[in-house]
């Protein structure tokens, strides 16, 4: 499709640029580790932002090439090199760009670039400035690897790589031990998911090796799996569930969601980029990528939908009570991710990806706004000490408002279209209860987001420090993202509203069943849209009136349902339960039973030292014969002599 060989390697450059940025920034970070050179920050800024932007431009080029090529076409560059080459399995290090990848590439590099720019302001003057950009660039590299790989193993490289970057960035301010702990928790919880992911890969291999006679060993390639998906009929459910375990880890679903709220310990741009816009959607991306497998496994899809729905509900309810601005947004993210899984579960991967895109816009914007607020208020994160900031930081406030409206699902902002599409599919393709819960959650979303907005930006200022001035480098990306949150939904305007639902057609190849708007449902769809818009507006208004006009009501409400409030605000005690069920017993078992008991007492104490003791006792007994008296020895000698003579005589 592309003539020159150099151009055909272009997709590798997309990932290569951030890697280059990482290398340069690492060198800067290490060389000037101790004494920061004055010019280093400018260099880091330049390198750190330039390469993501270059990657974005290249992504745009790839996207437009793909856009202009006939349907069903994918950009498939030649393999960079053969990575793994064994008797039963070969894996190429190779990229592939199809519409799904292209969409994600634009989101990752686009939003990523904006956040890189934003961070130049937010991280200004930090001791680890170069290190920060090195990690951020590295993250972008791995994220691109994740979405651009043409096989499961390259995806897994990116998958683990972004996990590593997430670990490093959450614990970026490592001198605070709590933050370092949060990073570790994120990594380990993710690893539990990865365990499932790996088992999925093994099962795929097993299925091929036991059934396929093909001599082609590239069977971790998506295209290969897709071609041979009829081999998976019996195993599909198991494989799909294994992969979902991985997705639940990365995308923070029950039961592995616990790391994401803690991940807020990282710098806020990181929360925006990794823990809202890009990395946490990797699970959704992966399932969408393997959707042909999931279609073979209706049970697995059910599980995905149920888990997604439960997570959405649970996280949204926790978000109602949080007082840390970033924690609210974190639980909101978990909840929105639940929505995306719901979409996947009810057979609408297009809607899920659509929501990934719009969510990337408005949630990144929300996090960056939160970052601005935190920056402006001298690292104050508690919303009880905020309020009335609308006049003081107008750009941020306006952007926050736009994004809040967007996430609440009020038309015609981005969130409305994507969320409505999900709810519509839930309505038509799943039991009614799914829709009802989803509907409820959308109200909760609107409620807690407006609660947050009201408490932070409206009313009277409850803090005591005068807010900072915000640099342009921070305001500009926020403004751009706000605009995107405003208009981003128009890539998927449903037909019923006169649009063409471009993103749905663009990604139609994901599922075999066409989930476009069926004419018969047009009436229903309009009604549903109306109801949910109204519902969002009502809950928004409730939040306004409750927190702005009658704040004392919230107090009485809190006192009325003290126990319920405690349960929710302590996050249903899930962390404590995990700690009590898994962590402590395991540490206790390892320490007391395995180490002290098994290793030191039984193996070493009884067996090893037992042998030593037995030989010691034996030698003590035998050494009694060595009395030291010459006479004794002579007696033994003579007795021996007599014995020998006797033996000779008799025998």
């Amino acid at each position, binding site marked *: 499709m592309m003539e020159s060989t150099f151009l055909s390697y272009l997709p590798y450059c997309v990932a290569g640029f951030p890697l280059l940025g990482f290398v340069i920034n690492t060198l800067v970070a290490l060389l000037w580790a*101790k004494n920061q050179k004055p010019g280093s920050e400018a260099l880091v800024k330049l390198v750190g932002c330039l390469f993501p932007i270059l990657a974005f431009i290249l992504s745009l080029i790839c996207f437009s090439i793909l856009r202009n090529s006939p349907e069903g076409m994918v950009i498939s560059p030649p393999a960079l090199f053969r990575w793994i080459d064994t008797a*039963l399995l070969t894996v190429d290090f190779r990229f592939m760009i199809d519409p799904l990848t292209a969409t994600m590439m634009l989101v990752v590099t686009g939003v990523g670039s904006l956040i890189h720019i934003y961070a130049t302001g937010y991280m200004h003057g930090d001791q680890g400035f170069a290190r920060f950009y090195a990690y951020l660039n590295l993250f972008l590299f791995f994220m691109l690897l994740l979405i651009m790989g043409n096989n499961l193993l390259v995806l897994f490289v990116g998958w683990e790589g972004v996990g590593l970057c997430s670990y490093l960035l959450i614990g970026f301010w490592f001198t605070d031990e709590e933050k370092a702990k949060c990073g570790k928790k994120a990594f380990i919880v993710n690893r539990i998911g990865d365990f499932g992911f790996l088992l999925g890969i093994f099962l795929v291999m097993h299925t091929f090796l036991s059934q396929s006679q093909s001599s082609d060993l590239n069977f971790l390639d998506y295209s290969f799996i897709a071609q041979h998906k009829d081999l998976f009929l019996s195993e599909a459910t198991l494989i799909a569930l294994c992969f979902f375990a991985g997705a639940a880890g990365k995308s923070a679903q029950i039961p592995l969601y616990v790391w994401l709220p803690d991940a807020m310990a990282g710098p806020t741009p990181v929360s925006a980029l990794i823990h809202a816009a890009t990395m946490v959607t990797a699970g959704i991306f992966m399932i969408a990528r393997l959707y042909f497998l999931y279609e073979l496994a209706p049970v697995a899809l059910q599980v995905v939908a149920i888990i997604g729905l439960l997570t959405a509900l649970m996280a949204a309810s926790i978000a109602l009570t949080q007082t840390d601005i970033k924690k609210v947004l974190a639980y909101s993210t978990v909840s929105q991710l639940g929505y995306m899984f719901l979409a996947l579960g009810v057979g609408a991967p297009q809607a899920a990806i659509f929501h990934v895109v719009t969510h990337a816009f408005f949630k990144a914007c929300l996090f960056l706004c939160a970052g601005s607020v935190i920056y402006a208020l001298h690292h104050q994160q508690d919303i009880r000490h905020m309020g009335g900031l609308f006049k003081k930081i107008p750009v941020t406030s306006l952007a926050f408002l736009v994004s809040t409206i967007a996430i609440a699902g009020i038309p015609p902002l981005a969130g409305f279209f994507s969320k409505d599409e999900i709810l519509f599919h839930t309505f038509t393709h799943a039991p009614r209860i799914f829709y009802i819960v989803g509907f409820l959650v959308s109200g909760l979303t609107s409620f807690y987001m407006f609660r947050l907005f009201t408490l932070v930006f409206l009313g009277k200022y409850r803090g005591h420090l005068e807010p900072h001035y915000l640099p342009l480098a921070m305001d500009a990306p926020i403004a751009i993202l706000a605009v995107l949150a405003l208009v981003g939904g128009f890539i998927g305007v449903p037909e019923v509203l006169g649009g063409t639902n471009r993103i749905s057609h663009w990604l139609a190849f994901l599922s075999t069943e066409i989930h476009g708007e069926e004419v018969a449902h047009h009436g229903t769809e309009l009604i549903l849209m109306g109801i949910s818009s109204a519902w969002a507006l009502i809950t928004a208004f409730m939040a306004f009136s409750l927190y702005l006009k009658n704040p004392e009501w919230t107090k009485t409400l809190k006192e009325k349902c003290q126990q319920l409030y405690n349960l929710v605000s302590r996050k249903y005690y899930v962390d404590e339960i995990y700690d009590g069920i898994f962590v402590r017993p395991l540490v206790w078992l390892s320490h007391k039973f395995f180490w002290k008991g098994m290793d030191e007492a039984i193996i070493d104490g009884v067996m090893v030292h037992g042998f030593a003791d037995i030989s010691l006792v034996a030698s003590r007994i035998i050494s009694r014969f060595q009395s030291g008296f010459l006479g004794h020895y002579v007696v033994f000698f003579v007795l021996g002599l007599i014995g020998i003579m006797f033996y000779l005589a008799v025998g």
Partner: protein
Amino acid sequence: MELINNHILTILIAFPVVVSFVFLIIPREEKKLLMYLAGLSALVEFIFSLHLYFYFKNTGSFEFIEIKPWILTWKINYFVGVDGVSLFLVLLITFLMPLVLWSACSSIKVRVKEFVVSMLILESSMIGVFCALDLFLFYVFWEVMLVPMYLLIGVWGGKNRIYATIKFFLYTMAGSVLMLVAILFLYYQGGNTFNLVELYEHTLGFTAQLWLFLAFALAFAIKVPLFPFHTWLPDAHVEAPTSGSVILAGVLLKMGTYGFFRFAMPLFPEAFDLLKPYLVILAVIGIVYGALVAMVQTDMKKLIAYSSVSHLGLVMLGLFSLNPTGMQGALYQMLNHGISTGVLFLLVGVLYDRTHSREISLYGGIAKAMPIYATFFLLATMASIGLPLTNGFVGEFLTLAGSFQTIQIPTIIGATGIVLSAVYMLWLVERVFFGKLKTPGGQTLLDITRQEFLILLPFIILIFWMGIYPKPFLSKMNRPIENLLIQLAPEQTEEGPVQIHEEIHMR
């Protein structure tokens, strides 16, 4: 060139010993000179050993063979050769040795002459172990290697070194003496020969196989170490000097796995087939158990020692899976472990040189004082927990993916090791490097010197090279595995029950 090709292994085995004789005439006061010369000769040895790599033809059988009669009445030959597996193990030794000797310059201050001589003899005997194709010769090298290691721990070790070194010696001896008996028995049973290639051809009776396998397996299981035979390892590691730990973890442990691969499995296929389930169980226990115990250690070296138990359990799992990919992964993981654990021990040594403590609880926030050191440590950690693009991932992935094809349940249990390894290593990193700087004198801690940097750099390069482009390594391991699998092929095991009957009748 022909001359070198024919004698390269002998040169590799003999060169360090010859050099150590030269050292006899150097006065012991010349510590610098001794170290320098030892490092230099190890480097020359490494360059020699590269010859193996470049002229290796990958024919599938042993190459660079040299065979000379040694003790004629017993038909004992000096018979050496390498295949795709032992090739890399030899390279691993020659790669580690110069770096270890260089790093010892700053930490070994007493009895330098004895130290370098021990190290060089150790190098010779280790190379000998991996090259020997005559069982008697193998046994000689196997035992010779014990002596310098015993001295390394016992003379230059830590506080409790005498206990540790005697434990190490007796443990290993207990296994290897039984192996000697087995080797002698094999000599009579297997047609009066110690020649491994001839013994491969020979089929033994089932009962004989069983006993012989048990004797060999015990020796190797202690060395690996497999689960209940592992308690010498933490003690030896903790007390050994850094250089000893690196060699111990990097090379000595591989002799156990190599022994299974080269001797125990192919010589006694039917016995192996019978006992395989139990060995697999031990391997899996080792993975989980080692990881859990590593998690709660308070001494850095002990933690890494137990992590070795876990990693080597994985290697054994892959090896016992009898799946070509799994075995390839296992053999690859042997090299990986040598490098990643080796560098971890070197790193702990660097810190120990500065603070003279390995207690984890004493540290905290080192990353602030020693950023470059912390970076290196983190990279080594990543390799150890098998993060993609490091060597550990390729090994772990192939091992688990392969063994999943034949033994699923044990593999699933074993795969929890990837979670647990993250737990104990990251916890270690967190406690040592993150948080407030609370190490006594932490502010004045020196970041790594140029010398240490240069020592550590090759490891890091290799970690990424082997993780990103493993082909040069993996491609040479295919043929030996095929050979082993043919050796273990089912038509031989089908005879098993018949032979049991014969044995019973003979009694």
